[in-house]
């Protein structure tokens, strides 16, 4: 910013020298030799001005780079704190866009728009202050017309703002529509609607064009106002100067200097207009980023430095209740459940019954506000979150595979594991065979050149991670879709080994898993309605028996 102001000073100096040179040559008939010193000074001013411009660019961009990198770090760290409860589902795409593109948009906002806002107030004042002593009439003319620019722009702007906002969304809808149509090509073709859809693409595009132009007319109007005031007042200054020269109330040199400075007076305002749109985009992105940063994290780290729990883990839930921030109804309430060490508990219930919420609480992706969860008698909230999670291995239904090799993906469970340990875990998970078929085995990059893993293969990698982590407790979300018989068998065998001697909580979808569980916990509407073994629950004829019954009545 300081460079911007200094640059303006250099510009004034340059223009002053220029007007002097022209004055001496034109009116005094001086030769090149006589104005040589002035020309050299002029050269100096020019070089200085350019140098300052360069420094201004560099410092503006450096500032923007610093802000971006700092915000990116904070945003990502905070997203990690917010956890899967916040980032899941439909929000994922938007968050990715904000973290990737939103941050980049700040560039124009922080690097250009903000400094320009200040400069567009400072530089005109500087120019006017310089002109004022020797030509107060022109200075006054400029100073009177300049405020008209923001005032008129705001007037036009506020009138157009509402329409524009509506239109920007439909502007992006035009490409959204096109994408929609392209993604639906197979449906369109299957129903023989190709030709009709083509007309529609044309019609929608045409509609959007008309409506967009309607609004752009307003947007351009504010640009028109800016240009109009700026050029017209330059013209007025010029004509007024001409008249005053004729009547002899001003000399040529100052008059010419004022004419040279008049465009400089308006330049920062014009540049502000150029950056306005990108600036607005950046502002919107910044607002969204701060909104995310202001969302409170659902988990606070424990105070006590409890580090080890020993080999076996017994979990006790007492009166646990949890309500998601955006919903009014508790997702879980009054949960009392013990998971004895080394036992397997099957969690059963319809979708929305609160099964995932229970897992989120145990994993401490969220913390319950009522009730307590303890491990071997110690409240889990007393542990630092990371330490607590070291005790748990999670096998989700759809594990996420990261950019990187198969080896790296398994090793995430324990970064210091040797290659042999990773391979051993993969073997236990029944993954050796398909990994062997990949082009570079363990070193095959996932997602590269069409290497895609099937659901069953991805699951086996998740199981391998769990083996490698070797935590005392295992939480698992069983697959609902049927895989090929080979995968089914391999996964079944691997899980049996994995579950042995661990405290296991499994969101169960399969009867044989449920049969084998030491206890079944049935959730309904956020409440624990039944616990017991399969035989006990069938006999009591409660909700579990009805669930199983619905299934059995279905004709095969």
């Amino acid at each position, binding site marked *: 910013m300081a460079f911007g102001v200094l640059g303006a000073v250099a510009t004034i100096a*340059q223009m002053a020298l220029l007007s002097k040179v022209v004055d001496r040559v034109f009116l005094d008939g001086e030769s090149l030799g006589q104005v040589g010193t002035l020309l050299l000074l002029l050269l100096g001013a020019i070089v200085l001005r350019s140098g300052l411009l360069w420094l201004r660019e560099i410092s503006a961009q450096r500032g923007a780079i610093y802000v971006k990198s700092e915000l990116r770090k904070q945003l990502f760290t905070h997203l990690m704190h917010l956890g899967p409860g916040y980032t899941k589902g439909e929000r994922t795409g938007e968050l990715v866009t904000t973290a990737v593109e939103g941050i980049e948009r700040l560039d124009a906002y922080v690097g250009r728009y903000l400094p320009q806002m200040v400069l567009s107030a400072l530089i005109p004042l500087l120019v006017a202050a310089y002109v004022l002593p020797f030509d107060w009439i022109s200075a006054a003319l400029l100073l009177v017309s300049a405020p008209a620019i923001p005032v008129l722009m705001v007037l036009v702007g506020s009138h157009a703002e509402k329409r524009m906002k509506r239109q920007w969304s439909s502007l992006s809808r035009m490409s*959204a529509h096109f994408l929609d149509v392209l993604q639906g090509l197979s449906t369109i073709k299957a129903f023989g609607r190709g030709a009709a859809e083509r007309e529609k693409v044309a019609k929608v595009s045409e509609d959007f064009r008309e409506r967009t132009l309607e609004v752009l007319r307003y947007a351009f*109007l504010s640009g028109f106002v800016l240009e109009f005031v700026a050029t017209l007042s330059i013209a007025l200054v010029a004509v007024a100067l*001409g008249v005053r020269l004729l009547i002899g109330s001003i000399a040529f040199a100052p008059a010419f200097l004022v004419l040279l400075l008049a465009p400089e007076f308006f330049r920062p305002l014009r540049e502000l207009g150029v950056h306005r749109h990108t600036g607005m985009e950046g502002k919107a992105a910044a607002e969204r980023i701060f909104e995310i940063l202001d969302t409170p994290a659902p988990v606070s780290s424990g105070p006590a430095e409890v580090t080890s729990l020993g080999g076996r883990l017994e979990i006790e839930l007492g009166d646990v209740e949890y309500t998601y921030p955006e919903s009014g109804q508790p997702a879980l309430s009054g949960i009392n459940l013990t998971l004895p060490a080394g036992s397997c508990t099957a969690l059963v219930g319809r979708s929305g019954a609160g099964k995932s919420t229970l897992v989120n609480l145990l994993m401490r992706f969220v913390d319950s506000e009522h009730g307590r969860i303890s491990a071997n008698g110690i409240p889990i909230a007393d542990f630092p979150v990371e330490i607590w999670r070291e005790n748990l291995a999670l096998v989700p239904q759809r594990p*996420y595979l990261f950019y990187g090799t198969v080896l790296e993906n398994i090793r995430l469970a324990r970064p210091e594991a040797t290659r042999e340990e990773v391979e051993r875990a993969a073997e236990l998970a029944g993954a050796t065979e398909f990994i062997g078929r990949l082009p570079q085995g363990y070193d095959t990059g996932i997602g590269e050149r069409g290497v895609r893993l099937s659901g069953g293969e991805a699951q086996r990698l998740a199981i391998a991670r769990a083996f490698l982590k070797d935590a005392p407790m295992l939480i698992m979300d069983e697959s609902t879709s049927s895989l090929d018989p080979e995968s089914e068998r391999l996964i079944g065998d691997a899980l049996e080994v994995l579950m042995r001697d661990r405290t296991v909580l499994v969101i169960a*979808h399969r009867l044989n898993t449920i049969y084998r569980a030491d206890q079944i916990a049935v959730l309904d509407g956020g409440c624990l309605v039944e616990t017991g073994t399969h035989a006990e629950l069938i006999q009591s004829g409660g909700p579990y028996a009805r669930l199983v019954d619905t299934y059995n009545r279905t004709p095969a």
Partner: protein
Amino acid sequence: MRVLLRLLGFLGVHRWQVALAVVLGVVMMASNLGLLSVAAYLIAASALQYGLSQLTLSMFLVQIFGISRAAFRYLERLISHNVTFKLLSSLRTWLYGRLEPLYPARLLEHRTGDLLSRIVKDVEELENIYLRAFSPVVVAVAISTLTCIVLYVFDPLLAFVTLGFLALSGVGVPLLVSVLARRLGRRELELRAELNVQIVDGIQGVQDLLALGQASGQQRKIEDLGHKLGRVQKRMASITGLHSTLNDLTMNLAMLAILFLAIPLVNEGGIPGVYLAFLALLVLGSFEAVQPLGTAFQFLGRSLHAGERLFEVSDAEPQVTYPYEPLPPPRSHTLEFDRVSFRYGEDEAPVLTDVSFKVEPGSRVAIVGPSGSGKSTIASLALRFWDPTDGEVRLGGYSLPGYAEEDLRNAIGVAAQDTHLFNQTLRDNLLLARPAASDSEVESAVEKARLGEFVSSLPRGLDTPLGEQGLRLSGGERQRVAVARALLRDAPVLILDEPTANLDPSTEHELLAAVYEQTPGRATLIITHRLVHMERMDEILVLEAGRIVERGTHQTLLDNNGSYKRMIDVQNQLLLATV
């Protein structure tokens, strides 16, 4: 160059508007040039105490230029944006027309799921070709020429020197900067791509990261990459900052050079002194036109890349073509696969091998098997999205390639597994299957597909918008919309691809019962991994790894005690109500 010409070809249709916009752009630029230089002349002439009559013209011109710049700019922007949107509109329509016959064979060759969004982005990129690439170049050339002509009148040398500086600023500086930035720019792109991958991974995989205790590891990775990127961007900033700096420098040096050349001429009387200020400002002003060239070249480069990618896709020959002289529409509707084998590409593993079966009108055939066994490919072949690598698919006794596309589509109704719901109302989404259907027909299809309760729960019933801006449907709801579409279509051949995936058992049962009631006399092909109502099938084919490993009725297959029996057993293990 060919790509550029083809892209400009799209502008050709609107050539008069393009010409008008360019002319307005030139006039707008010239107005500013004129305003400052004529004003300089005016002041100089006034200083010489010229008579008022001699000054009237220049005063008048100054006023005109003062107003015209803003006005022409306004008009220019309106017209150029109008042209741009027209261009986009015709591009989209053209591209859609090209892509439709290519689907799916040629489009899926690229196999990247984001090909479609890539295409949309490329089209958007072309938005810039007129506004930010074509127009600035033409305007820059016109203004440079104009300036040089004026200067030439005073002295040819002035014109050539100025031209040199203009070229330096418009072409030399951008070239220099791009050469300097090339290596760093590539590094920046790489780093940014890597960073983006890590951010996306981090957000999408947050659950696994936290569970594995690797969140801080990922944070560190992102921070490191961010620092690396920051360092590269900082170095980049001093190079890109050079762009505007050098432009500014050339502009002022040009002015200085003109003074240097013109002062002796003024001294000698070759140029009247009154024009000295005019010349200085004329030269300064002319640079406004060449300064956008740097970005124009960048946009041009990007547009050309986008155009190249688009043409690459659009120039592909459709894999499936329809005959010029098609057979008459099929009279009978037996769907028959005769020793059909299929692979997606030359060097890829076969998806189907030697598959033969026949679905007669009035009969039901089920294809069952684990996911990935090639079931859905059978539906794609029946719809002629692809042609088999070996063997024939026949309808009414004739091979499918003999029929016109329209006749084929009319004969087959499909409830696809990946049915697409458009950003329209539910009603429009259903009417897609048969635009002429009456309200009562739509409602009856909704009822049969067991969507009635769902529809009445919607705020605006059938007229509730779906998709991006509207309601999101669950998997089971989508599937039922697909079935409703197929029922509304009411074609002689009905293909149901996983019609009951994601449904609870009682809804599944009701839906299938309703569908079978509606379909007497139709040839029905059901593709499913859910073994429900199998006793109502005339034939069941068990597909494994693209081959039919077992076939027969429900009972014979149970007795066989093979793959089918195993699948039934696995299914019996599922406590479906928990889904």
